[in-house]
């Protein structure tokens, strides 16, 4: 047994690390470090820098811009980006729509959409959830009726992340209300957000931030060539995506970085006795537990990668474990940050003017609130546990 990266892998890591250090713009790095809101432009800037280098979609086939890296290199790359504090890559095009088109799209669809996703020309969002269909996604009601060479779409999506930035939305819609099984009447449609009849309404989260939306469809016309795979086979497409190789689900690199920053922060915050809270054994123990959790998750992740590399099998319910543990760790870190600031974290914004207000301390509690989302979205942690119970344990 050898738990270490090989010499080649280490060299690769150093190369990636060096390149990011040189090419990640300082202002973006600062924004991420200060927990500032990232604009569409901020997100796209980093996307385009990576695209230019040829590293924005390592997992795609080489002919479409992929790097040909193995699973371990890809994992190293993603962890290094997180560890360096790079802005996150918006997953909807690169990690979701792209892979779907690569697997199920027509040649024409691939040619039309993939290069634009790669270069960051189109901003995508994901239209799955509906007010009545969250965990039970297959009960979705948004209808698409075929009329000649178009579909007419009516209904509503909810929780659409960054829908207010998006040029395109990929949707699960119901094309056959009478199918024997509810999964069978669903299709996967690509819809231009500029289409007449689409209304995007902001949904404000409890931290006051605008990142999700409601998207309403009122007689929206969608050309049939925007159907992906066959009509009624949308569930197959969606399932493929759920089981898609998500190596970075645990966000270990980003959590490592946050943990290191938490230590720096806690070294500067006073405990009850006036010494740094970092030296308070009660705080220290809590922090250490999170650190150990993260170490365990990292090794678990590497163990899964090693198995994938050797068997060539895509991960199954392993991804659920990574999601559960990864999000619990992220939440624990945001909570410890807030606790380190103590009573000062209660003030979240100045009531008049910003003079003298400590913005970083002010954002810690709202960030803790915001991160409650991580155990809810992308398949809630309860649903992830159901998956493990069913798929792995046969319960």
């Amino acid at each position, binding site marked *: 047994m050898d738990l270490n990266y090989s010499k080649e892998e280490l060299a690769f890591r150093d190369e990636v690390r060096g390149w990011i250090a040189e090419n990640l713009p300082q202002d973006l790095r600062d924004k991420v470090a200060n927990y500032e809101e990232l604009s569409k432009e901020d997100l796209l800037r980093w996307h385009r820098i990576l695209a230019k280098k040829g590293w924005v979609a390592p997992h795609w086939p080489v002919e479409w811009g992929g790097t040909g890296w193995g699973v371990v290199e890809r994992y190293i790359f993603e962890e290094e980006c997180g560890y360096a504090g790079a802005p996150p890559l918006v997953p909807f095009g690169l990690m979701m729509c792209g892979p779907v088109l690569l697997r199920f799209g027509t040649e024409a669809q691939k040619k039309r959409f993939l290069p634009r996703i790669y270069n960051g020309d189109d901003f995508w969002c994901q239209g799955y959830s509906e007010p009545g269909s969250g965990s039970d996604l297959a009960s979705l009601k948004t209808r698409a009726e075929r009329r000649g060479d178009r579909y007419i779409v009516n209904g509503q999506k909810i929780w659409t992340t960054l829908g207010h930035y998006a040029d395109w939305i990929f949707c699960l819609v119901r094309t056959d209300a009478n199918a024997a099984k509810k999964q069978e009447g669903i299709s996967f449609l690509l819809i231009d957000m500029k289409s007449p009849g689409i209304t995007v309404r902001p949904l404000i989260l409890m931290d006051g931030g605008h990142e999700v939306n409601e998207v309403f469809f009122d007689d929206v016309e969608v050309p049939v060539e925007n159907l992906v795979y066959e009509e009624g086979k949308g569930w197959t497409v969606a399932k493929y995506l759920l089981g898609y190789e998500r190596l970075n689900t645990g966000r270990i690199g980003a959590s490592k970085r946050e943990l290191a920053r938490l230590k720096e922060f806690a070294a500067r915050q006073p405990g009850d006795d006036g010494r740094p809270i970092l030296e308070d054994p009660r705080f220290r123990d809590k922090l250490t537990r999170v650190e150990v959790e993260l170490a365990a998750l990292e090794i678990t992740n590497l163990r899964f990668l090693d198995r994938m590399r050797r068997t060539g099998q895509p991960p199954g319910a392993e991804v659920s474990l990574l999601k559960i543990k990864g999000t619990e760790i992220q939440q624990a870190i945001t909570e410890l940050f807030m606790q380190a600031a103590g009573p000062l974290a209660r*003030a979240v914004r100045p009531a008049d003017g910003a003079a003298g207000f400590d913005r970083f301390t002010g954002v810690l509690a709202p960030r803790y609130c915001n991160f409650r989302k991580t155990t809810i979205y992308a398949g809630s942690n309860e649903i992830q546990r159901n998956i493990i119970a069913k798929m792995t344990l046969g319960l």
Partner: protein
Amino acid sequence: MNFDYSEEQQLLADAVRRYLAKDYGFEARKKIVASPEGWSEAVWRQLAELGLTGLPIPAEYGGFGGGAVDMIGPMEAAGEALLVEPYAATMVAARLLARAGSEAQKRAILPQVVEGRLRLAFACLERGARHDLSRIGTRARRAGDGWRLSGEKVAVVGAPAAARLVVSARTEKGASLFLVEAGETKQRPCVTLDEMRAADVLLEDTRAELLGAEGEAMPWIEEAADFATALVCAEAVGAMKYACDATLEYLKTRKQFGVPIGSFQALQHRMVDMVIATEQARSMACLAASKVDGAADACERARAVSAAKIKISDAARHVSQESVQLHGGMGMSEEMKVSHTFRRLTVIAGEWGDAEHHLARFAALEAAR
């Protein structure tokens, strides 16, 4: 043994709850929070009319002479409704004044508080001291027959709405309390996570009046903090009750997979644990209040209050986190009251000392026994 409220306590609790249910619904509260002041004078007058502003103030100054136990009902109602008016802040400072102040000071201020014409705040937190109220950096110096204060107090809840502040500061003789005109301080007002208004208060050779004996304020400060902690414990119980009620209702009505999500046993057990935590918290809130009123000595009082706050801080985190999680995406939405209750409970977990602070305090008290 008798855990029931007296008839008077029950009547008051009912009256407060009725008033808040009628005039302090989630929508009404939203408007108040969005207003420039962030609290409502009209609501304050109503609180005064109900007799709340005089509750812990001695009868000779127009109050009801009540104790912490009398405050449980109103505070629980405040927690349920997420009251943002600086009620607890004013009551804590007023009670401190009633205990430590001179006759003239009490006569000058307390009747006005009772009538709802004056609000107070207790400025005791400092930047470098976290929850330890004895680590006082603010300095007081004698100037003529008065005093001058210099230093900074942070996150003083209710300061922007207060006419007078009770401030802890250090003289040559040690920890002391002072009364300061709020208008003579420099304030950096802020909005808190739980949508209240607070301020950092800058004292730059600010005029002050000594409150109580010089250098002997620590017992008063500790007692005030224990009283305040008992209030926040009762308030937490109200907020947790709302979080449980709202979540239970959601589990019964929200359907996924063709059934109410409350039919999933995985969620039933989580709901049960929330309710158990709330019941335990309620017991500890009763303990804290009754010991604030009737403990044999300061040590017994402190132990009970710290024990209560440990339980309540843990329960506040647990119940708030679970209430959001079981609501799914809806729990994250600003439009849902439960997300605001989450924010209040998050603050409560750390208010007047987080669980770790009280664990350390409790352990130290045990060791000294």
